[in-house]
């Protein structure tokens, strides 16, 4: 096999042929809008991938356009030719990754992020606990004063301010691995806790379990679960992401469940595509397919089970920033809005351009900070024009980014970013079955 053929295979050249270059993707691409050139549009990127795969251009030309892609997949939703842009992007990232001689600081940071930060179960608690200690001990205040946070890699100083208050280690340990109230249960559910969600948004995970229990479900938290691998795949670390997928498939096979529920749009998008990672007909492909059919977002299952009444009015005007991966990959669009409309007293004012990415995009806001902020500022303009007091999200990346946007707009205190699950938990959820048993 020639090296060009090998390259073509790795880069998913076959998929690029499906692009007829009609340009229908241009109006929805955030980076085409902010960076103002075709090079940073889906059509432009696919063309460059094709050029490289045909040996007409050097791999170097791909580096910047591919790294500046958010991977929000808005293009795939409008594409009339059904081009598998996600697979082209991942192939290109893989090739770029191997091609480039990385600058040392970035490599150090990425290794830290991907080898220590995201994949293991152990890190979740460690990171959560360390952050908690940092916040509680007052180190945070001192560090902020001394500008020490500026030294942290990857513009962490901007993000550090928006990390929520975290529970103590003791509280973390208190969480059980199985919950049930209603017998027989309405459904048996395995909860995929997610790594960022479980470390930084532990409360949200608790509320998720609470809502599921209120829905009459039996909830299990498989111990062996690990990171979904989305961030690895988005950074060209394909092999690592496959290993993580296998570990999760195995972990969730241990008990017979009806659903595998997550509350992070980005993770969910990865989980429902696990079967794409394996060769068709292989044993892992079969196992992945079984896994995938059970995966649902928390908002989907709450709408489907429809077992909760919200008894406490929330007198607020909120807006909803959908997670791109939830919209464009999972195709979950209505359920979050349906749930918000169930909260008494709440007014939902939708964004003008909900499908426009917030610029969080996995690790994009850390690795491509400047571009990410241009996109965030556009998003915030839309958010502020709704005059909402809360921005509701369904993904930890979006949630942190929205918090950062509020901070940048100087509207901290007037406006808040909140995960939909936390808002639902505030609204006095009561299981319909609870009433029945009482009544």
């Amino acid at each position, binding site marked *: 096999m020639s090296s060009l053929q090998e390259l073509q295979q790795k880069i998913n050249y076959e998929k690029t042929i499906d692009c007829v270059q009609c340009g229908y993707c241009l109006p929805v691409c955030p980076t085409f809008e902010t960076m103002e050139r075709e*090079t940073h549009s889906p059509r432009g990127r696919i063309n460059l991938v094709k050029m490289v795969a045909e040996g007409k251009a050097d791999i170097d030309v791909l580096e910047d356009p591919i790294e500046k892609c958010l991977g929000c997949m808005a293009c795939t939703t409008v594409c009339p030719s059904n081009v598998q842009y996600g697979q082209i992007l991942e192939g290109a990232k893989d090739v770029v990754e191997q091609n480039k001689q990385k600058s040392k600081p970035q490599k150090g940071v990425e290794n830290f992020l991907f080898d220590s930060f995201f994949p293991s179960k152990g890190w979740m608690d460690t990171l959560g606990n360390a952050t908690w200690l940092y916040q509680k001990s007052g180190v945070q205040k001192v560090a902020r004063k001394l500008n020490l946070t500026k030294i942290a890699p990857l513009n962490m100083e901007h993000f550090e301010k928006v990390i929520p208050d975290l529970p103590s280690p003791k509280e973390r340990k208190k969480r059980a691995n199985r919950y049930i109230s209603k017998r027989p249960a309405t459904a048996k559910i395995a909860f995929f806790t997610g790594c960022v969600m479980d470390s930084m948004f532990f409360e949200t995970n608790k509320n998720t379990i609470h809502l599921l229990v209120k829905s009459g479900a039996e909830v299990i938290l498989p111990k062996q679960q690990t990171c979904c691998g989305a961030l690895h795949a988005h950074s060209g670390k394909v092999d690592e992401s496959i290993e993580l997928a296998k570990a999760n498939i195995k972990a969730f096979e241990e008990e017979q469940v009806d659903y595998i529920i997550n509350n992070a749009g980005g993770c969910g998008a990865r989980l429902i595509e696990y079967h794409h990672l394996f060769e068709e007909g292989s044993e892992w492909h079969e196992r992945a397919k079984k896994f995938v059919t059970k995966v649902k977002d928390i908002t989907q299952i709450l709408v489907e089970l429809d077992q909760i009444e919200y008894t406490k009015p929330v007198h607020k005007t909120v807006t909803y920033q959908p997670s791109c991966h939830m919209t464009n990959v999972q195709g979950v669009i209505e359920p979050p809005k349906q749930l918000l409309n169930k909260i008494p007293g709440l007014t939902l004012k939708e964004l003008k351009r909900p499908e426009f990415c917030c610029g969080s995009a996995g690790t994009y806001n850390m690795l491509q900070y400047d571009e990410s902020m241009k996109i965030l500022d556009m998003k915030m303009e839309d958010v502020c024009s709704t005059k909402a007091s809360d921005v509701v999200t369904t993904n930890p990346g979006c949630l942190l980014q929205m918090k950062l946007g509020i901070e940048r707009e100087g509207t901290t205190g007037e406006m808040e970013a909140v995960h939909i699950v936390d808002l639902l938990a505030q609204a006095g959820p009561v299981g319909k079955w609870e009433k029945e048993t009482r009544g």
Partner: protein
Amino acid sequence: MENWISALQLNISETQILTEVADRYSYSFDASFGEYLPEVVVQAKSKEDVIHVLKVANQHNVPVYPRGQGTCLSGGPLPVHGGIVLDMSKWPEKIEVSPDDLIVTVSPSAITANINSAAEEHGLMYAPDPSSSKVSTIGGNLAENSGGPRGLKYGVTKDFVLGLELITPEGEVIRTGGRTIKNVTGMDLTKLIVGSEGALGVITEATLKLMPKPPAVQTIMAVFDDVRTAGKAISKTLTSGILPSKMEFMDQACIRTVENFKPAGLPVDAEAIVIIELDGHKEALAIEKEQVQKIMEEIGATDTILPKTQEEADKIWYARKQVSPAIAKIKPTIVSEDATVPRSKIPDMMDRILEIKQKHNVEIVVFGHAGDGNLHPNVLCDKRDKEEMKRVELAVEEMFQAAIDLGGTLSGEHGIGTMKSPFMELELGEVGLDMMKRIKDAWDPNNIMNPGKIFPEKGQKLVLSDE
């Protein structure tokens, strides 16, 4: 070469001049065939930018290719001889509706659909609706004289242009036409420029005509068991005093492909369907829909479907929209043609297409704006298969010939560009083409504006495969 690039940089911000290889590759293509690497891409944001580019280019004999969003299906913006791609799409969008005059003044970068939305705020509409209208710029529409389904009732881009501002190839500013419907002052340069595919200069502003937005629409779907009857039904409707806003045709191959792709409840056994949209006042529509239904039944439609709700109507139009993506699933390359015939010749054209399909053993599906004779025979192929592409080239050539034989034209709405220029003489004759060329030579003595388009180059043939 460096000489002219530094001359460009004198008056234009360096952020607007792209010379990196990745950027140049990104402006080397459009939605048609072929890729050509330009030396430079200039993103014009003002009249002054365009004047400067054209003056430098004219002085140094460098070709300039104006480009909107690159949705062209005939190769209009392709930099076939290298030089400067002039990206007009980043010009700040200006759409100024003057409701009292029923006109709108727009920048070349205005997105076609945005013009219509702005007009709708005043109860007006901008009628031309090319299927790429959410993406395409008006500058590109003007250069290519784009059409769309509503062309049947309302006409195409050229029918809506009252005035233009143009930078000549020598870098001078001229204004043609004006802000009035009636204007017979001198020769009609406006109409000459519209559809000239960027060969006569760069349009920097346009004044367009608006019309009242019809208050209601009614969709009708008619089902036929042979294509000829469908063709007759279209002619009969149009000669019965009814002018629908759209009349779209789908053949059996299209219907089945769509149903396999995303089932929409289309009749898969039908040989053809015609989807009609009437627009106007509700009361008028109630009468017209009955008349259309009667005509369809009398002429032999096996079924006519009148959707009762907007949802049902949307479903039918959604199915029509799925044709392109659905056929893209069968084979990766689609050669979308737009040869157009007089309306009465649609059945003959359908017969000819069938013959060509069998003769060259190529896959062709037919859909399109049948009401105005503008069919879109789409050849489904794979451009990596050189042998197949040769057969496709022959089939396409014969479709052009068939359209001309039937009194039609090479292109109804896509333009000539690089793809159809070899066939120009066939339609226009030697003298006709020469007169056109003389106009071009007089306007653009150094031939810097979009060279290699419209006029065939020596020995040029239709080539659809890469090498």
